């Protein structure tokens, strides 16, 4: 009886990813470290192959000079750039493939191809920023937690050109996306890109959060209910500028346990097309979200 129990426990441990030693290496991971919502790059690191099964924290510690607190579960400083910790409102946050991790960095395992982004920022205006666009083409290419998810492109009527542009950008990044109309039911495990003018896509339950401000969606932009204007918000979550006709927005948010939903939108068709054309690694790198003014110039969010 005891032998059986021990055997069962051993099997459970083995199946649960247990073992002796560092485990199998993880291939092709990289990390970026920035300050103030991506405004300043602190450093970057990449590894062709890690030394074994790696956690986000260990990879960070191997690549940067890191100080931690609470038994190694909380990052205090990276390369001398310190968070304020208890009592402060500036801390280090991390995103894996553009998704805010639900667990501590010491508990989050890295999978092949994962892109980790650490950013130190003020969190008073938005306690949670569930998804960011700065790791494009992630999470569409690698998914999250080692699992790839189906990608679905939902296009508003009349936004065909923008939609084709987005599909082309996804294809160029090696992502095959299915297409569906707005309002199609989506399961929890589908990554969605919703393309169209704000007035048409604002009814989407996930994207509707963007209209409620940074605290609700983690996006520092707030389109007007009519969709005619777009308020870009500063770090405090207050309007910094209002953009009119021809403005675009690329933002990501998340509803509950669903996978992230991206919005490629604008105040009108022109703005939406500008946003679709802005999809790319160079434009989106280190951006939490990106607005485009009527002249097509990028406005990193939150605005300065």
């Amino acid at each position, binding site marked *: 009886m005891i032998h059986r129990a021990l055997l069962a426990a051993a099997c459970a441990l083995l199946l649960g990813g*247990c073992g002796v*030693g*560092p485990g199998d290496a993880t291939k092709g991971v990289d990390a970026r470290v920035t300050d103030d919502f991506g405004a300043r790059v602190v450093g970057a690191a990449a590894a062709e192959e890690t030394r074994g099964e790696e956690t986000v924290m*260990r990879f960070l510690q191997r690549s940067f000079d890191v100080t*931690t607190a609470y*038994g*190694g579960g909380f990052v205090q400083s990276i390369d001398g750039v310190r968070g304020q910790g208890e009592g402060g409102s500036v801390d280090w946050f991390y995103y894996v493939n553009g998704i805010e991790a639900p*667990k501590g960095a*010491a*508990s989050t395992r890295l999978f092949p191809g994962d892109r980790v982004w650490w950013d130190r920022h003020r969190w008073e205006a938005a306690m949670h920023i569930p998804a960011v666009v700065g790791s494009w083409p992630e999470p569409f290419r690698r998914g999250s937690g080692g699992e790839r998810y189906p990608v679905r492109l939902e296009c508003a009527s009349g936004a065909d050109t923008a939609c084709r542009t987005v599909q082309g950008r996804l294809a160029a990044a090696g992502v095959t996306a299915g297409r569906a109309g707005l309002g199609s039911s989506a399961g929890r495990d589908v990554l969605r890109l919703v393309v169209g003018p704000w007035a048409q896509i604002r009814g989407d339950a996930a994207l509707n959060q963007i209209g409620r401000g940074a605290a609700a969606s983690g996006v520092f932009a707030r389109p007007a209910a009519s969709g005619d204007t777009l308020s870009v918000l500063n770090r405090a979550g207050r309007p910094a500028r209002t953009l009119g006709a021809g403005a675009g927005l690329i933002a990501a948010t998340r509803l509950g346990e669903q996978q992230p939903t991206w919005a490629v939108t604008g105040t009108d068709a022109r703005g939406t097309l500008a946003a679709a054309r802005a999809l790319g690694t160079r434009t989106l790198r280190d951006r939490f979200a990106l607005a485009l003014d009527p002249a097509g110039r990028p406005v990193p969010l939150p605005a300065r």
Partner: protein
Amino acid sequence: MIYRRRPTPLHAARAAAACAYLGSLLLVALLFEHPLVLAADLVAVLGVIVLARATPALRTFGPLALSLALLIALVNPFVVREGLTVIARLGELGPLGRLDLTLEATVYGGVLGLRAAVLILAFVPYSTAVDPDGVLRLFRRFGFRSALSATLATRMVGVLARDARRRADAQRCRPRPAGRLAMTRAVTAGALDRAIDVAATLEVRGYGAAGRRPPGTRTPWSRHDLAYLAAGMLIAATAIAARAAGLAALRPYPTLELSTGPLVWALAGLIVVAAWLPFADRRGVAA
């Protein structure tokens, strides 16, 4: 544990010197995390226990120190998420999250356990070889009444323990055990009797004179006092200087970094030799 005068140099030393000496061994354990220095401190403390004939007390404190050291050493790798050298992966453990045991957390757990053992064991010679009245006399000038109360309380522990044993013997002789009320009455009456005895004794010895302290006696410093004081100061000064100079440093995380070299060994050797040396002079110690 009760202090009992024994024929050893440490017992012969005055409380101030013995406290400074043992305090220096505690200081080493608090200042350093280097395993070699802590091991040397442990060896020094164990030697002091043997040389001060305090080995019987190890029966009580040895298992306590060992079990606490093992507990700390075992728990640390499970609660600390630091270290880069993974030696075992325990997978996802519910609310604890992913648990990987690292070499660094395991080694540092051992270091913390070793330090706890040294700190506990350093109090063995203090409890058995340092006159508690002498210690309290040190504090008399700062708080005479507190020192007196503490002295009496220390003395009363043994007296009350003997009372309890006698009462237990008496209980066993009864055909039926006494009720709780009767026991409480007997214990209270006994404690009050003791208190009245102590008060009367203090009165007779002149402690009742308001605010007046009994005259202190000045005893010249013996060679043992000087030897233990010198040893304690040497250990403390060397430890502080070495710490300030960054000698024998240990950086446990993210990867274990341990300073080695002849100076670290010299520091370890000095701690042991300086701790044992005062015991070499047994002149004037009654056999």
